[in-house]
């Protein structure tokens, strides 16, 4: 078992990229790897408690066909990204931290965020937490 932490810098706030991050996190959690997710900008914005369940759209390259494919999967009952992430947190050691700079830029306070978010940290604390683990940028 590889217990080096996996870090995900989640910058993007569209549903496809949020889902990609949730999938990567839960796969690592299933293998027993610690996961540290750092929320920046639009990724952070998607975690506002009053918006988390909204339709956040898809990346520009999805186009009409891509959207139809994603909608079809959803209609078949694929779990939304925030439920996949909640399961990953239940399963293993998955920590979600908000980037303090992004909190300032978007004028978000911790009270505005969903309970999936564990706290706020700066980039230095992020690097210390990750150590020599891998970093994914989504």
């Amino acid at each position, binding site marked *: *078992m590889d217990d080096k932490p996996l870090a995900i810098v989640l910058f993007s706030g569209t549903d496809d990229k949020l889902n990609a991050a949730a*999938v990567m996190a*839960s796969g690592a959690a*299933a293998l*027993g790897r610690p996961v540290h997710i750092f929320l920046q900008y639009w990724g952070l914005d998607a975690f506002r408690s009053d918006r988390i369940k909204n339709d956040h759209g898809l990346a520009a390259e999805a186009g009409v066909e891509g959207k139809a494919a994603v909608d079809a999967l959803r209609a078949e009952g694929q*779990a939304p990204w925030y439920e996949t992430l909640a399961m990953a947190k239940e399963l293993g050691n998955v920590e979600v931290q908000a980037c303090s700079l992004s909190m300032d830029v978007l004028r978000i306070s911790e009270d505005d965020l969903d309970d999936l978010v564990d706290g706020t940290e700066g980039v230095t604390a992020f690097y210390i937490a990750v150590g020599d683990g891998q970093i994914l940028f989504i």
Partner: protein
Amino acid sequence: MSDVHTTVDAKGLSCPMPIVKTAQAAKTVPSGELIEVLATDAGSVKDFAAWTRSTGNSMVEQTEDDGVYRFVIKRA
């Protein structure tokens, strides 16, 4: 073959849910007992091979019938 302790029905679920649900179920399965997993996700064959290898659980049986994969995993 001894009896299955727990069955995880992950049919219709897409990646990574079959693994996530199995990993979750494995927490409550005692060492040496068997977990049966049913999945339709084509990626699950390689995923379960990798997951058992890396977690120390062992793949006891693996079959496919009409698009449904069945894995029997012995808990480490």
